């Protein structure tokens, strides 16, 4: 402590130098684009499309016209996160607790393998699986006619779970893996049945992993556009789809920017509330990204 205070001046100078590359990176990669987007959001669409300088709140006033995209995103993202959690937890638990060391690595690799190809291609594959010549075709052979799977809310949710499962599995796996197995024995020893032990020890102690996984998946789902476009048949429209449309098709950059800024604000607010809730909890001490 004493030396740090004494060398305070030199220290802060050195700190600044060491932090400079990171700071610069943040400025260029994160802050500047954001500033540009914020500036655009107060502008007007030039007649040819794109941006024309101005200062108006018109774009924000126009947001309600995209209400459906907001409500869709804000229903599907949390719902998708929850469903992914429900599917990922048993899988992570199985990998961390039940599988013998010999198979563990192989199974973990299998969880990552799908990530080696792009989400686009994998989502495309689901179009065939769920589409007329896929599962519905098989069902027809055993007598279930006219089952529609593709272009339904269910298909979108399925795509979401499929696409983001590994991101949820890994943090949960890590928190279960590092859970001291002796705590489970202690609970057992004190009269807790295996099920009660799971509820009272395993589950609360894997909270940090669940929190991390949910946060990652939720943030990514909020910006998702590929899965609803492919598996929702254009009927289920997310904010991400609206952005693609506004920036690339109708070239209404200012309105797109206003939408983007609103999305960022919504995310900041929900993530902050979420972190408050999970970090303030009793298990808070252990909250970490991994």
């Amino acid at each position: 402590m004493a030396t740090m205070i004494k060398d305070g001046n030199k220290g802060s100078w050195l700190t600044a130098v060491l932090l400079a590359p990171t700071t610069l990176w943040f400025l260029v990669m994160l802050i500047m684009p954001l500033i540009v987007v914020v500036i655009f959001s107060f502008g007007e669409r030039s007649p040819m499309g794109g941006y024309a300088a101005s200062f108006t709140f018109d774009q924000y006033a126009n947001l309600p016209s995209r209400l459906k995209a907001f409500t869709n995103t804000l229903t599907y993202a949390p719902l998708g996160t929850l469903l992914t959690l429900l599917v990922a937890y048993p899988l992570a638990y199985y990998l961390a607790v039940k599988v013998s060391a010999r198979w563990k690595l192989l199974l973990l690799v299998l969880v990552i393998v799908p990530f080696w190809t792009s989400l686009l291609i994998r989502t495309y594959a689901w179009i065939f699986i769920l589409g007329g010549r896929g599962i519905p075709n098989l069902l027809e052979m055993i007598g279930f006619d006219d089952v529609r799977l593709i272009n339904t809310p269910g298909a979108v949710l399925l795509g979401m779970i499929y696409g983001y499962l590994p991101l949820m599995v890994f943090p949960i796996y890590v928190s279960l893996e590092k859970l001291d197995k002796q705590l489970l024995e202690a609970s057992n020893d004190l009269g807790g049945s295996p099920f009660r032990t799971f509820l009272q020890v395993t589950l609360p102690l894997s909270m940090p992993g669940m929190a991390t996984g949910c946060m990652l998946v939720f943030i990514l789902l909020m910006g998702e556009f590929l899965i609803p476009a492919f598996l929702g048949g254009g009927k289920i429209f997310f904010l991400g789809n609206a952005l693609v449309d506004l920036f690339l098709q109708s070239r209404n950059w200012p309105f797109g920017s206003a939408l983007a800024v609103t999305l960022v604000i919504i995310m900041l607010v929900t993530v902050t509330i979420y972190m408050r809730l999970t970090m303030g909890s009793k298990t808070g001490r252990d909250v970490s990204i991994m």
Partner: protein
Amino acid sequence: MNKLSNDHKDVEFVNVTKRFGPVVAVDNISLSVEQGAFFSFLGPSGCGKTTSLRLIAGFDQPSEGDVHIGGVPVVGIPPHKRPVNMVFQNYALFPHMNVAENIGYGLRQRSPKPTAAEMNKQIDETLELVQMSGYRNRRIWEMSGGQQQRVALARALINRPTVLLLDEPLAALDRKLRRDMQIELQTLQREVGITFILVTHDQEEALSMSDRICIMREGDIVQSGSPRELYDHPVNRYVADFVGKSNFIAGSISGVNGKSITVKSENGREFIGSPSTGAPTLRGGDHASIAIRPELIAISPSNTSAADMNADVAMNGRVKNQIFLGEHTEYLINAEGIGDVLVLSPKHIESESGGFNPGDTVTIGWKNELALALEDS
């Protein structure tokens, strides 16, 4: 085994074997622990102490044999249904719960669950028992190792188990704290009257706390008995070496004459010792050692005769090292023909003779009846 004879035994092992693949952790052992006893498993690391404890707790099931708790066979019964509780070596306190929640954990698992008021009352009483009143709302990581130890103890004791199992409970504490906790554990055990089964590799700990000790080696029980029995009548050299300090003169048996056994040392000199009570009978030619405790050896200025020292054997030697221990002085002496010998000389003798310094030549001696002839294993 009829039911009656089991009634005063809290734990019984009948020919218990536990294998982990090719490793035999516990090898066909039988033992019984009296109700209300302070019982210890003592032995070097890896000899099967923890495994024995885990067989009682129910975390492991025996490969062969039977385990009884309170006269009831328990093989196959899961840990949460056994009337025993364990204090883990690294405490295994729940990090997401505070002290009171940890201690109340066992009560909350009961059905019907006690009322909140009843639980709080018991938690407070138990906290007082382990001298931790006022720590109710502490987080686990806010406490020292010694305090965590007490919480772990309280968390187990609150359930009033038939048997409390302690796996090297003091190993992580510093020396001074360990001494205090040894005394406290002993007092606590008398106070609550619960059978304690302790696992330790520290002979001093086992000797000072337990009323019965079971000495293990490689999954086997070598000897069990009271600390005094083990100290005075070890069945072989291993036990004599493990329990307290002892000097050994290795050789082979050259004569057996009732209560007097002659051992011829490697350099040809003959020493006489008595057989240990309960030890297997020794025969001529067997590898054996003469064992003599440091406090049974007398030390005098050089060239004192055996008769003058009131001893049967005497030899000259040179003081290599001297350690003053207050009540005693410990000497390491290089004695003619037998090598290094540890001698513990009490204070009153020291003040008569004036003591000896490193480099002094001295005579040491002992009475044959105080030496033991022990099997070399």
